């Protein structure tokens, strides 16, 4: 079964429903991690919900996509949208986290991370202020490292809409970090000049 793609498994699961468990085995960890980042404490429950819903709606999976992961991210994003308050609470908690202390091996990379941490508060506050649809697109790219095309599949929107949502989100973040004068602080300018991550 390892060499069979998700699309084929989902197609076969209409006749052999138990095969759908293979989709769970392949993707549960990523979906659960995604939900933990987004809404915190209810992640376990929601991750289970994602696969139950996916099973229920498996006839709508478009077989042109070999991997079910973007589709599962889409279902998970929809569930997150039912828990906006939890998400906002999580983002604000993340904003208040203390910056990581650098260790003895203070490489340039660590220094960059420390600089990034100094922007944590305005960044997560900006995330909390984003329109939900823009935040969904942005975090699928930034945290889950989906391509624009995969985000389009996940959110069931055209790629052009993905780009416009990302542009809007990035603009708001840049404006927020820069503050009211439109001038980014030095660490932000440095990071935005090219952070090696």
């Amino acid at each position, binding site marked *: 079964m390892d060499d069979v793609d998700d699309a084929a498994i989902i197609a076969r699961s209409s006749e052999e429903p138990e095969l759908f468990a293979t989709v*769970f085995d392949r993707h549960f960890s990523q979906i659960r*991690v995604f939900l933990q980042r987004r809404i915190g404490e209810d992640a376990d429950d929601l991750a*289970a*919900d994602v696969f139950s819903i996916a*099973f229920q709606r498996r006839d709508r999976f478009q077989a042109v996509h070999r991997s079910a992961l973007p589709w599962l991210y889409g279902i998970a994003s929809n569930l997150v949208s039912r828990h*906006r308050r939890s998400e906002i609470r999580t983002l604000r908690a993340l904003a208040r986290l203390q910056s990581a202390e650098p260790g003895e091996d203070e490489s340039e990379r660590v220094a960059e991370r420390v600089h990034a941490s100094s*922007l944590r508060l305005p960044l997560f506050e900006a995330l909390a202020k984003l329109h939900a649809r823009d935040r969904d697109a942005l975090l699928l*790219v930034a945290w889950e490292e989906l391509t624009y095309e995969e985000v389009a599949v996940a959110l069931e929107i055209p790629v052009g809409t993905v780009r416009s949502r990302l542009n809007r989100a990035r603009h708001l973040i840049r404006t927020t970090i820069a503050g009211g004068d439109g001038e980014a602080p030095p660490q932000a300018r440095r990071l935005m000049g090219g952070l090696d991550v």
Partner: protein
Amino acid sequence: MSSEVKLLTALRPAVAEPTPETRARAREILLSRISADARGRRPRWLRGRSVRRWVVPCLAVVGLGAAGVGLAGSLENWWESAGPAVRPADVEDVLNEGPATGTGRMEPEIDRARTVARASGASLVAAPTEGGGYCLVPVPDEGKPIHTCIEDDLDNGEIDTWVDNARTDPAWYLLGRVVAERATRIELFERVTHPLEESGAQTLPGTPLEADVGPGGFFLVRVPRELWPDLELAYGQMNVLDADGGVLERSCHYLGATKSVFAPEGIASVGDPLEVEGKTGASYPCPETGAAVDRVPLLQASPRTDDLTGVAGRDVVTGETIELASYLGRPLLIGAWDPDIPTASRFLEALDEFGRRHPDVQVLSVLHDRSFRAEAKQGSETLGLGFPTIVVTQPFSPPRVFIWDANGHFGLAVIALDADGRIAAELAAPRSRDPIYRYGMLTQRALEDALAAAGG
């Protein structure tokens, strides 16, 4: 990759991989779902019941009266014939908070939000969604709007209730949408009944309320305070009228409570309407007062061999996790319910009474929808229940508990587990297409029988 995205990636929260136990539990839930599917069960919530939950229920209202605005426009592209949204910034804010159906994205087209009805002290704003549905935003003249979005049952229209009990002058509104072609007015309520009670009003005093249907079939009606006693917890027959006063549709709706035991202070009780049978031209009058009293005792079903001991959930009051396995060794009665069910409070009271009369019997209640957690906590505390209520948040858990009828509708049920955790008896409402008969009337005698079957 843009610099903002790089920055976000650098600050991506570190999250541990799921534990084997978490994974195993989630996998078991999926397998249970697969098993249930093989038996042809389709729980209703997956078809979008949760889309009707209200968000941010808080408002301030003043004044009395009832009025719609404008004439009914086309059911399609209704935003083209309606006026601009009142308080557009507040409307946009509240629409951006969600919710979604859980099975499909609901994206309100905020630019197309329009004021579609008006009543004393409030306006109704509607916005189409990208999926072909709509969002309703009741906007009080003062205070924060609330909203809900609907993308299923579009052919049947919608009616909800909205109450503010936090004010010194509470206000009760009825709002929604009718989808009958040629509809121009609605009549509320030619007939008011209490099918689950032995007595109660059969008609409203005086002339029924009427209201214009606004663009798109939307309406908003404020209920005069003097009518509240007759409408409280009643079923009301709504008539949809054409320009000549002819009745296009009749439908029957549960009107809920103006102050529910499940509603946090100042929050609306949301009526869960009986279904409108069919579409335009359908006729569904409310059942007579008392009609359902004798017909809906919870029925005892055959014992089954299902094992529920792996089920766990979070206590709505304490937040602690409770595992059914911890009840092994003695019989356990589990009540499955939902605050939207009209008889839910009496169901819980009956269960509580039984528990108090039999202190050696273990009693527990379960909810399936986590969005009801706050209401369940409120109800548990208000009613002073002596047993815990847990939210079993997985959608189909307890996986094999039958609380949906053949049409996928939700009802009330009690499951009696024996000392080994096996289902020894089940009390559930009759399978019926008529939703009122799903709500059941839990009797002490039925609980005695269930307990006896469980070896208690």
